């Protein structure tokens, strides 16, 4: 069965410091991976997806099939990046997502 692991519940960094939110997955097929973000008092929304290979709000994520990872990175954290981040794996044709347990990113001055 598919599984998504986010090992850190809370990641606290200083403003301007690099950020890396870890995500590992287990799935025997070809994965489609996403990062969703939930800012305070806002609804969960897509941040980026691996097939787009784009940078959103300075964040990037590279799918590493050898390490089964999809870590989210940003070179310089900003206060507005403070939020809950979820890594999600889509499998099959029914558009279902398997979410990790989430990592709360806290950016402090």
């Amino acid at each position: 069965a598919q599984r998504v692991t986010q090992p850190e519940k809370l990641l606290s960094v200083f403003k301007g410091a690099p950020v890396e939110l870890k995500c590992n997955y287990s799935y025997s097929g070809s994965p489609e991976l996403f990062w969703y973000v939930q800012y305070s008092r806002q609804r969960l929304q897509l941040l980026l997806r691996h097939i787009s290979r784009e940078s959103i709000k300075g964040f990037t994520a590279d799918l590493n099939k050898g390490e089964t990872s999809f870590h989210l990175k940003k070179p310089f954290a900003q206060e507005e990046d403070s939020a809950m981040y979820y890594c999600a794996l889509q499998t099959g044709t029914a558009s279902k997502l398997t979410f990790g347990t989430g990592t709360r990113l806290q950016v402090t001055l």
Partner: protein
Amino acid sequence: DAGITQSPRYKITETGRQVTLMCHQTWSHSYMFWYRQDLGHGLRLIYYSAAADITDKGEVPDGYVVSRSKTENFPLTLESATRSQTSVYFCASSDPGRIAKNIQYFGAGTRLSVL
């Protein structure tokens, strides 16, 4: 962006009562989903629907019932609420069409407390 709305936003009920959470989307997305969000578990899929009158179980379906008589509505019913169903419930929709393939759009959530 109010394409997907959930009601009520907050609900307090007692054990044993039936509760229905509503979800409405205006995009005509074919897929709709219900998740629950709990500390330490992230989001877990309760039920999903590929189209009107087509529903299927997710990871944690016990104690829940869904229906989808119209494409735009996907209500979730707790037939006899239990304290373990205290949670934040999120509805989502997606369109498997080419452009936004498989991206899920979420409602604002319903915070349910079962006393």
